[in-house]
């Protein structure tokens, strides 16, 4: 005849309680998302025009300009940017400047323009949470 061992039964209960607690933590805090890359939120090197936004009309005009056109062509369409990102060198010996415009109709989305010297290289969208 076996008797209940109070110490082992108690350990078993602790084990269950610990496991349940871990499960709860796992449900409430997804460890993997905690380490996921976040969208760029504040990478401006300097803010140029805090009120600057890009209208729908300006956006459609910029999108119609082909890459490698003159920087002046773009600047004739847009006003001062909201901010500039730090210059980067992607091509050897060529410094790229990047200007940021929040979209007027979706301020959480940034429109990024990249110039190399007097040449317009391209654009992209940065979606911020």
């Amino acid at each position: 005849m076996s008797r209940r061992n109070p110490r082992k039964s108690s350990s078993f209960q602790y084990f269950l309680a610990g496991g349940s607690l871990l499960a709860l933590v796992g449900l409430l805090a997804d460890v993997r998302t905690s380490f996921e890359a976040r969208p760029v939120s504040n990478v401006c090197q300097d803010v140029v025009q805090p009120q600057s936004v890009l209208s729908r009309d300006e956006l459609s005009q910029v999108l119609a300009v082909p890459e490698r056109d003159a920087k002046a062509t773009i600047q004739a369409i847009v006003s001062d940017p909201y901010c500039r990102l730090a210059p980067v060198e992607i091509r050897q010996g060529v410094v790229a400047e990047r200007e940021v415009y929040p979209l007027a109709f979706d301020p959480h989305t940034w429109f990024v323009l990249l110039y190399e010297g007097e040449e317009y290289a391209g654009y992209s969208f940065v979606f911020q949470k």
Partner: protein
Amino acid sequence: MPDTPSCFKSSQHSSQCLRLQRFGMLAIALLTSASCHPSPPSIETRRVHVQQGWELQPGHSIAGHPIVAGLGDVSIRLRGNTLYAPFDGKVEPADVEDCVVFSSPTVPAYLLRLCGLSRPRLGIVKQGDRLGTGHTVHFATLRKQPDGTWAIVEPSLNLIETALTPP
């Protein structure tokens, strides 16, 4: 005979033991559901049309042997070390075997094609994240052209150093 907790003995299931076992099974189920998230949506292959239409380039083969790098690729002996994301960005499988494409929304008009990484990390990455390891990585920098193609250009030393240096 070693004494085992009575809850493990089927002949002695008390109502408390049943409750505990159910509780334990629930805990295990919860743990499993918490740790086994549905796999992320598959990342689609990025097709990159390189402007320079050389005959010998990655993805091609000659005399039955695959070409792993071509003109414009900078081949770096990693010796099993790690390549890091130079910017926040995204890694997608390339339409060339053994290659991935790295792009960053904060660096418009440029792509990096990285060939030779073993088990590269795909998806969203943050600057400094590990992209993968390998013995030799072939590093191509591509700049967008007005016709939608991508031209291989000379990468800056700083860019490559950033990708090779732990954060």
